[in-house]
């Protein structure tokens, strides 16, 4: 075992001021624009020829859109196991 490596990522982008197709409708609340504020983290370890990586994207389940009317990725937990041959 060679210890752990960890990473914490933060991504922020301010809300779009104008969009091409679906501007925010203030009367109905549709197509609201919000900033992007997403935290990701990963934790990995290696043992001999094996490597295990745990990764969580969008830790705080932040809801936002990057493309108009398309929800961006919600929280995703992934485990990767690698073996060097």
């Amino acid at each position, binding site marked *: 075992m060679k210890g752990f490596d960890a990473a914490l990522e933060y991504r922020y982008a301010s809300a779009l001021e104008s969009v091409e197709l679906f501007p925010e409708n203030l009367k109905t*609340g549709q197509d609201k624009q919000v900033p992007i504020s997403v935290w990701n983290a990963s934790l990995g370890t290696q043992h001999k020829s094996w490597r295990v990586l745990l990764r969580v994207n969008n830790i705080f389940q932040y809801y936002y859109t990057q493309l108009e009317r398309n929800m961006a990725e919600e929280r995703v937990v992934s485990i990767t196991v690698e073996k060097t041959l």
Partner: protein
Amino acid sequence: MSRISLLMLIGLLGFSGCDDPGGLDSVTGVHGKVIFGSEWPDSLKAAAVVVFDVGLNLDSISVVGYPVIDHFITFGDPIEPGTVSSEYFIQLPPGDYIIMAIGLLVEPAVLLANEELFARIGEFIVTPEYAVPRGPAIRENQINEQTDWYVQF
């Protein structure tokens, strides 16, 4: 944890700020079902569930020249002629509204594509004979449900 790692972590947290940027909330609105209780008149090109503000005078909606557009808020998906029943959902912020089913005398796509025409929407709508418009109040974080709404043009 080394000092550099700690400083990087603090810097990252500081960059994000302490304020919640506020993501997208769960939506509020109204949904229900419209049941068409009679044959569709040939003159109708479509129907739609339409939302007006509470300032709309229901007795004047069919009066020529009444500014219906001033009270218009939004509408649901167009309903094709001959439809027997149709469910709808309309996103709305909490508040009081008048919601009613109407018939359209022009193609919805034509109406939507022409701002000048849309401003005269009052001239192109038909109100049902046997549907009572309702005034729902949508409370915070709730979906107001309307069911078994019979419409007869």
